[in-house]
C-alpha cells in the first residue's frame, strides 16, 4: 500500500474544491474525486438541452467568503460576478414592486408603496449590516465543544465573549431577536407594506422547510446577508456562465497549485485500518491511498455511507441519524423560444434582474402550509432568473433560458404517487402558477427540466434534496453542526475529515467550510 497522495477530497463541490485548493497551496499533493462528469456539485452549469446551458441547481452567488476570493485569487481564475441589477415582484392586482441597483430609484419605488417604509429601508439595511458584522467572527472560527472545550475552545469562547461584549447591549439584544424570531415578525417591526415585508422575508425561507412565520427564519435571513460584507460584493450576483463558473474558478485555482481533479470517479468507501483512514475505494474497485481523506459530502453520506457504522461511537451515529435535511425546494429549468410576457411588468429591462413570484406574505405562508401537510405548494414561491438577458451565449441566438428556483416542494410527496407522477404534478403546478403572471409562458416553452428534491438527491447526492446539506436551524448550527462534539471538521476516524456545507458555517456558496476544514487539516500536521 503506497501513499500516492497526501490528501484525497471526496466530492468536487465548491467546498471540496476549496479544501483541495488550500491543501494544494500548502504543498500537499491533493486529489479530488468527483462522482459525476462535471465539477461543482450543486454549483454546476450544464448544457441540459442542446445549445441551452443552465445553472442546474444553485443559482445566485453572494455568500462567497471574501477571504477565499482573496487567498485563492479567484478573480485571476475566472470568477466574474455580474450584479443582479433589479428585482421585481408582479402583484396579484396587476401592479408590481421593484428594487433597482440604483438606490434612489429603489427608494422612489418603495415610496410608491409606502412613505414610511421608504424611510425605514436604509435603516433596516444598516441594521442588517451591523448584525452581519456582529456574527462575522462566529462564521470564521472553528466551533468549540461546550461539554469539553479544552484550552483552544475556551480561548475561542473567550474571544467570542469579548467580541459580543464589545458590541454593546443594543446589538446583542437585536442579535438575540434575530437568532430566535420568525422573519415575518422581525420585518414586521420595520415595515408596513405587505409586499415589502414579503420580499424582505424571502431570504429567511430559502432552503428551509419553514414558512415566514416560523421562528428561526430571521436567522436564515441573516445568513444570507453575510456575503455582503467587506465590499467584495455589493449585491447578489450571477456568475458569468452560471454558478458552475464559480466551481470552475476554484478548481482552476486548485489545479494551479498542483491539485489533481478526476471526474467520473465515484467513491464507494473510505478505507479504514485500525481506526485510521488510509485511502478510498472507488466504485470501480480501484483503491487509492493517502494520508488524509476529507469528505465534502453531507453528514449522512460522510458518516453513514462512506464509512462503516462500527468505526463510529453510538452517540455520533444517533446524532447523525437525527440531523434534519428536509429539502424544501425544487428547480424548473426552461428553454424558451422568446421572452415571457409578464402582465404586470411593463419595463422589459426588469427581466434582466430576478423576478419573484411572491405577491404577498400570505401567499408565502400558504405555500409553506401546503408542504407542511405533505407535498408541494399548489401556488409556489418562485425565484426566476433569465440569465440569457445578460449572457446570450447560454442559449442559441434569440432563444432564452429561464431558471426557476421553486419553493416549497417536500422530499417526501407520497400522496402524489410515483416519483414520475410527483415530478409531473409539481412541474404543472409551477407552470400553471407562472402562467397566471406571464400568460404566454406555455406557448414559448421549448424544453422543460423539472427537478424535485428527490431528483436533487439522486443527481447531486444531497440527502433529501437539501441545498444546504442540512437545515440551518438553531439546533443544527455552530457547535451542533453536524453533531455535538464533532463540529471541528474532524471525525472519530483519524485522518478523516469533513469539509462540506453540513459543517459550520453551513450552506450556500460560501466556501467557508472548505477553507476552515483545510486549515484544521493543516493544523493537525496532515
Amino acid at each position, binding site marked *: 500500500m503506497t501513499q500516492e497522495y497526501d490528501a484525497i477530497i471526496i466530492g468536487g463541490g465548491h467546498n471540496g474544491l476549496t479544501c483541495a485548493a488550500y491543501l494544494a497551496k500548502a504543498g500537499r499533493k491533493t486529489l479530488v474525486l468527483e462522482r459525476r462528469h462535471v465539477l461543482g456539485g450543486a454549483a454546476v452549469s450544464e448544457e441540459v438541452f442542446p445549445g441551452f446551458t443552465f445553472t442546474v441547481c444553485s443559482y445566485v452567488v453572494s455568500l462567497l467568503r471574501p477571504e477565499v476570493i482573496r487567498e485563492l485569487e479567484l478573480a485571476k481564475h475566472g470568477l466574474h460576478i455580474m450584479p443582479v441589477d433589479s428585482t421585481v415582484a408582479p402583484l396579484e392586482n396587476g401592479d408590481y414592486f421593484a428594487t433597482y441597483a440604483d438606490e434612489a430609484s429603489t427608494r422612489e419605488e418603495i415610496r410608491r408603496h409606502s412613505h414610511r417604509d421608504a424611510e425605514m429601508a436604509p435603516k433596516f439595511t444598516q441594521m442588517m449590516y451591523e448584525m452581519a458584522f456582529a456574527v462575522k467572527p462566529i462564521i470564521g472560527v472553528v466551533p468549540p465543544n461546550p461539554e469539553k472545550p479544552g484550552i483552544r475552545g475556551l480561548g475561542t469562547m473567550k474571544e467570542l465573549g469579548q467580541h459580543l461584549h464589545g458590541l454593546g447591549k443594543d446589538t*446583542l439584544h437585536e442579535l438575540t431577536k434575530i437568532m430566535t424570531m420568525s422573519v415575518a415578525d422581525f420585518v414586521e417591526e420595520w415595515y408596513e407594506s405587505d409586499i415589502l415585508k414579503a420580499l424582505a422575508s424571502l431570504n429567511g425561507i430559502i432552503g428551509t422547510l419553514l414558512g415566514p412565520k416560523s*421562528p428561526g427564519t430571521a436567522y436564515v435571513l441573516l445568513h444570507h446577508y453575510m456575503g455582503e460584507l467587506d465590499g467584495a460584493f455589493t449585491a447578489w450576483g450571477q456568475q458569468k456562465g452560471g454558478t458552475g463558473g464559480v466551481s470552475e474558478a476554484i478548481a482552476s485555482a486548485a489545479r494551479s497549485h498542483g491539485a489533481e481533479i478526476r471526474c467520473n470517479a465515484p467513491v464507494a468507501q473510505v478505507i479504514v485500518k485500525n481506526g485510521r483512514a488510509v485511502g478510498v475505494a472507488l466504485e470501480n474497485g480501484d483503491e487509492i491511498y493517502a494520508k488524509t481523506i476529507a469528505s465534502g459530502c453531507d453528514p449522512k453520506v460522510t458518516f453513514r455511507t462512506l464509512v462503516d457504522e462500527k468505526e463510529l461511537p453510538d452517540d455520533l451515529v444517533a446524532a447523525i441519524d437525527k440531523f434534519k435535511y428536509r429539502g424544501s425546494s425544487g428547480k424548473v429549468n426552461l428553454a424558451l423560444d422568446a421572452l415571457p410576457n409578464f402582465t404586470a411588468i411593463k419595463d422589459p429591462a426588469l427581466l434582466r434582474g430576478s423576478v419573484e413570484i411572491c405577491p404577498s406574505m*400570505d401567499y408565502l405562508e*400558504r405555500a409553506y402550509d401546503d408542504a407542511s401537510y405533505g407535498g408541494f405548494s399548489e401556488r409556489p414561491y418562485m425565484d426566476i432568473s433569465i440569465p440569457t438577458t445578460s449572457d446570450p451565449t447560454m442559449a442559441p441566438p434569440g432563444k432564452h433560458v429561464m431558471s426557476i428556483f421553486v419553493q416549497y416542494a417536500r422530499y417526501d410527496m407520497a400522496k402524489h404517487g410515483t416519483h414520475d407522477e410527483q415530478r409531473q404534478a409539481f412541474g404543472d403546478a409551477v407552470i400553471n402558477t407562472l402562467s397566471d403572471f406571464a400568460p404566454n409562458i406555455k406557448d414559448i416553452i421549448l424544453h422543460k427540466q423539472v427537478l424535485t428534491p428527490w431528483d436533487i438527491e439522486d443527481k447531486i447526492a444531497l440527502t433529501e434534496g437539501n441545498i444546504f446539506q442540512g437545515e440551518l436551524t438553531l439546533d443544527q448550527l455552530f457547535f*451542533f453542526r453536524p453533531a455535538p462534539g464533532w463540529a471541528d471538521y474532524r471525525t472519530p476516524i483519524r485522518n478523516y475529515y469533513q469539509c462540506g456545507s453540513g459543517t459550520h458555517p453551513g450552506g450556500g456558496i460560501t466556501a467557508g467550510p472548505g477553507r476552515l476544514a483545510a486549515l484544521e487539516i493543516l493544523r493537525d500536521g496532515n
Partner: protein
Amino acid sequence: MGNYDVIVIGAGHNGLVAAAYLAKGGRRVLVLERQDRVGGAAVTEELFPGFHFSTCADGGGYLSPEVRRDLALDSNGLKIHAADPVVFAPQPDGSHLTIWRDTARTAKEIEAFSKKDAARYPDFVALMQKLAGVVGGLMRIAPPDLPELAWGDLRSLVKLAGPLRKLGRKNLNELLRVLPMPVADLLNEWFESEVLKGAIAASGVRNITWGPQEAGTAYTLLYDWALSDTGLFRSAGVVSGGMGALTKTIAQAARSFGVEIQTGAGVERVAIEEGRAVGVQLENGEAHTAKVIASNADPRTTFTRLVDPLIQSAKLARHVRNIKYRGSAARIHLALREIPEFNALRGGDTATYLSGPIQISPSMMYLQRAYDCVKYGEYSQKPYLDILIPSLSDPTLAPSGQHVMSITAKFAPNELRVGDWAERREAFTEVVLDTLAEYAPKIRDVIAHRKTLVPPDLEAEFGLPEGNPNHGEMTLDQFFHMRPIPGYARYRTPFPGLYLCGAGAHPGGGVTGIPGQNAAREILRDWS
C-alpha cells in the same frame, strides 16, 4: 393616609405574592386593585346560579412549592387536589391514551399504541426532568443583563449549580440543542406513536400562539415541565374552590404579614418625579406616596397607561410596542346536568379518568392545523381542547350531582379577519361543541348553561391585552434577558423605584408566583 414603603398595583396572584414577601421582609405594603375582588385572572365566579367556574386562569398545579411553603398557604387553607391521570386523551377511533403520574403505569398504557415508545418513555421522562431542572433553576434568578455580568449575577448563578450537576456534563449539549427546537422535532426523535406525540406536544403549544412545528415550543414544553406538580409535562392540580380560592388564600397570607389590600381602587398613573417613581394617583382622585411601586400589570399597560408615555424614551416606546401578545385561547364554560359519556370510556371508570385534564389533541398534525388558521386571522374548525371538570374533585363547585366543565379551546385569534367576534362567538362555540361531540356525542344534551370568552372578552374582563393570559408571548425572543423588554429583565424599569412583578416579567405566565417572588427579592436587594 399612611405612608407606605411599597405600593403594589394589581392584586393578581403575582402582585399578592410580591406583597406578601415584601411584608414578610419588613416593609409596609399596600396593594391597590381596580376590581372589586382580588385574584386578577385567577378567580372563581358563579357564572350561573350554583355553578362556580375558574373563569380565566386554570391549572392549579403550577404554583411554586417554595411560595406555597414560604407564605404558609396550606395553613391558610389552600387545598390542591392532585389529580391522577395527568392526561386523559380520547382518540377519534374510540380508543384513549392515559398518562398517569406513575411512569411505569403510563408505559403500560403506551404499549397499546407502540411497544417501542413504551420502552423509551421512562428514558424520555428521566432526561426531560433533568433538562427541566435547569430551566426551573433559571426561572428563579433575575436574568443577567447580558452581555454585562455583575457580581450579583454570580451569586444567583450559584443557584444553578445543583440542577447543572444533576444534568451532568454529558447532557449540557442536549439542553442547548433542545431549548430552541420545535417540540415536534424533539418528539419525533423519541417516539413513533402520533397519539403519544399529540398528547405531549399539547404542552408545547398550550401557552403560545404556535403549532408544534414552531421552534421554541420545546422550551414551552420544558417550561411546563419545570413548574408542574406531576414531575411530568403538565400539571394536574385542581384547586378546591377554584382558582379564586388560591388567590384568596394568598391574599389572606399577605394580610397576615401586614399587607393592606384595597379593592375597587384603580390606579390612574404612577407619579414620576425627576425620573423616579414616587407614588400613585388613583382614578378616584386619591394619591399615595411610597418608596417603591411594583406593577403587577402587564408591560404594555404599565408603560402605555400607568406611566406617562410622554416622559419615555423613543427606544423604550419601541421595545414596548414590539412586545408580542397574541392571545389565541378561548375559554368555554359549561354547566352540566351530568357527566357526558365519552366513547372511549364505555363501561369504564369515568369518575377517575375524567378527574384530571382531558385533552383533545390526537396528533401533532392536528395541533399544527389547529394553529395554522390563526396565521390568517381565522379560528380552527378542529380546535385543540384542554378540558377540566373540577367538580369531580370538588363537588361544592356545582349543585349536587351536577358539574362544571371548563374548556380552553385553541386556536382562536384575538382579531378575526372576516367578521367580528360579536357575531361569530356563538359559531365558534358550536365548532368547539361539535369537536367535543366527536368524543362525547351526548355533550349537548347535558348542557344546562354555557358561556364563551374569546380573547377580546378576556381583555375586556381581565385586562389581558389581546387576551394573552401570560402578559406577553412566551417565545424565545421574549424570554430570559429579553422579557419583557431587552435591558429591563431584572424586574427594574427605566424609572428607579418602579418595578415589574407580573407574568410579563421573567420567567413568564402561569399561576406560579415566581415573578412576584423574584421581584420582591430584587426590590429588597435594592433597598439598602
